[in-house]
């Protein structure tokens, strides 16, 4: 007897644990207004890129709470399900399937890593899953394929690199030598390829004195800094981010590299609060788009002030660019649903109606308005500026800001970014808008 019960108990235990997924399945139903809008969010919750992933997730939590207090989207409350993209593509794709086929997610906000986005987009297409690419930067996505169910609510690597190039060409027109120090992975290589091609077109004759690609995750840059000190390039370009950028800034400041060369750090907005005033004045910084918590045209708007205050109160940090990218994705999604519903006579839109509306959509977010192009690519200006130390903040703020419009920095539909940047001319620099000074 005991034999039977034990085996039975074991089998029941095993069966019930493993059968758990079958108890839950729910199929997403189109057209009918759902009782809640489920948004699956993939982001980095672990690993080095969690410096972006966690602020992004935090922004989603905060904004979804705010949206829900104001009645959600079209009266439907939002619920988010967050998944970690750190373990790699095989895990992430399994998780996406789970969210879509088991949790019955209505929309996916996909990924920080470009590799993740490149893998998720085709899957979203197969699953007919409305997907917003909320932070990944590669321009390859919409250049190499066209997707019906994917849009991107932010710019991509091309304007993110072209804008700081035009900026440095404008504020330091006489630079003749340049060195690059990028992380040795896809983004580091891609961004350098774009910069190099664009620089040869915009400022032909600039000599590249060093191409340094320390390994991804490096914690010591003393060799690189020694070489840069010896080479004395006029400009040092680095698209590094996170812990590596922080370390590089600290070590470079320690050895006074900032005094010899002008730094161009297109992602440094996300490091400002962490490195503090170690980062000297006069460094060219950007934040991958048209956003900053002291955005020149939006800083006095109630919506941005409230957001920054609420974000600071809840997480004790200033918002950085991934928070704004997440906000753009959520505001874009809300605008898309509302417009599609209005066009649909107030009825809940189907997935296809939603995605058709998202294309060509113009929407307001925390720091401005932006549009989504017909190929799904978002168009937003690029805010680039120079660091300045002020008394109000314990870290540098951005001064001499230029907002590069997408017409100047983004390749048109149907062209490849890397080919398009070669068509830029020295005249492109003159077309940059006027500088906006920092004001308290």
């Amino acid at each position, binding site marked *: 007897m005991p*034999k039977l019960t*034990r*085996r039975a108990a*074991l089998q029941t235990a095993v069966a019930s*644990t*493993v*059968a*758990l*997924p*079958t108890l*839950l*399945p729910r199929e997403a139903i189109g057209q009918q207004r759902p009782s809640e809008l489920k948004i699956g969010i993939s982001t980095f*919750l*672990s690993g080095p890129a969690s410096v972006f992933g966690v602020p992004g997730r935090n922004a989603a939590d905060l904004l979804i709470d705010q949206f829900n207090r104001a009645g959600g989207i079209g009266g439907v409350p939002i619920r988010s*399900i*967050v*998944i*970690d993209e750190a*373990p*790699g*593509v*095989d*895990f992430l*794709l*399994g*998780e996406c*399937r*789970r969210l*879509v*086929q*088991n949790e019955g997610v209505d929309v996916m906000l996909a990924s920080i*890593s*470009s*590799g993740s986005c*490149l*893998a998720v987009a*085709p*899957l979203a297409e*197969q*699953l007919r899953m409305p997907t917003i690419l909320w932070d990944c930067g*590669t321009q*390859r996505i919409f250049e190499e394929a066209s997707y019906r169910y994917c849009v991107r609510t932010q710019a991509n690597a091309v304007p993110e690199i072209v804008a700081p190039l035009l900026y440095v060409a404008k504020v330091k027109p006489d630079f003749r030598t340049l060195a690059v120090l990028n992380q*040795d*992975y*896809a*983004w580091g*290589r*891609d961004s350098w390829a774009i910069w190099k091609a664009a620089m040869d077109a915009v400022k032909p004759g600039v000599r590249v004195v060093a191409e340094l690609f320390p*390994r*991804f995750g490096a914690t010591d840059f003393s060799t690189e800094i020694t070489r840069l000190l010896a080479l004395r390039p006029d400009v040092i370009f680095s698209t590094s981010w996170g812990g590596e950028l922080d370390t590089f800034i600290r070590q470079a400041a320690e050895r006074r590299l900032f005094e010899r060369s002008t730094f161009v750090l297109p992602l440094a907005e996300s490091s400002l609060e962490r490195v503090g005033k170690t980062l000297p004045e006069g460094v060219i910084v950007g934040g991958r788009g048209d956003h900053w918590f002291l955005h020149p045209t939006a800083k006095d708007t109630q919506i941005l002030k409230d957001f920054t205050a609420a974000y600071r109160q809840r997480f004790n940090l200033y918002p950085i660019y991934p928070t704004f990218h997440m906000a753009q994705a959520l505001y874009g999604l809300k605008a898309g649903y509302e417009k599609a519903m209005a066009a649909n006579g107030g009825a809940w839109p189907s997935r296809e109606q939603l995605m058709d509306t998202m294309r060509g959509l113009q929407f307001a977010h925390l720091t401005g308005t932006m549009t989504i192009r017909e190929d799904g690519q978002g168009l937003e200006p690029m805010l680039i500026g120079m660091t300045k130390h002020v008394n109000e903040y314990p870290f540098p703020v951005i001064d001499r800001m230029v907002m590069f419009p997408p017409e100047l920095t983004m390749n048109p539909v149907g062209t490849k970014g890397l080919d398009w940047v070669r068509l830029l001319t020295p005249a492109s620099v003159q077309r940059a808008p006027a500088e906006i000074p920092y004001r308290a």
Partner: protein
Amino acid sequence: MDRRLALPAFAGAALVIALAASAPWLKFVFTIALAKGLAVTGILLLLRAGQVSFGHALYIAVGAYTVAFTRPHVGEMLLLLPLAAAAGTIVGLAVGLFVARYRDIFFGMLNLAFSMVFYSLLEKLYEYTKGTDGIRVARPTIAGMALERVDYEWTMLIGGIALALALGWLASRFLASPLGQALPAIKTRETRLEFAGISAKRVLLVAYVISAALAGLGGGIIACTTLHVTPLLSYWTHSGELVFIAILGGGGSVLGPYLGAIVYELVRVYAAAAFPDGWQMILGAVLLLIILFAARGLWGIYEDLVLRKGRRA
């Protein structure tokens, strides 16, 4: 085949199919798990000889990238998978000739080194591999048929189960053969093996090449399932994952790797669903519990609870 293995094997296969039928998203998770199970079977062979490889993700990546690179020229899965296994075999032979001379920590660390060299190459040869962005794999045809997504996923899962059963059976035959029996001898006392006139190095090399071929095949299946390969496949955490699965499943049986792989993937999925911020803790706790209270892994628990009691009664 041993009835004590055949019964749970077929019952397990049926259970996997039943679960996948009721929850469609599990098809993908199970296919990946079975592919990893293949690689872990290779780890198991080496474990029999007392050797732990911390670098077998190398062969998974070799298999996966073989598929990714040949896919533009070869559109047939029945060719792609053997190619992946062949690539695993060739690289396994080249590396094996070297590492089979070493034992224990040296064996493990050398394997780790090779896999990380390959990882760096995949990252650095950006022009060819697209770096960490990875390479997209177009969905191949299966026996000349271009299948739709759902049919394709089913075919991959059923094919994976069939491969797992067939190769699991072969692996158990191999372990029962004189060559397979020589593996535990490497673990207990290698000198005796040499005195018996058997080259320990060659025995280990054969096991190593088999394990590389299995992992290459597993990598091929992963590439054909995820349809996107990235260098992360050969990163050391993925090698560690294979060893983790081997310990979780238990080395006592060729079913252990598949049991371990499926439980591992399910634990990870549910841990990630319940605790998106701390799923690694759950996995770590599971591994600790297994090490502390069930050193022979899940298969060991199964043996204790079902087989032993059954025999005694």
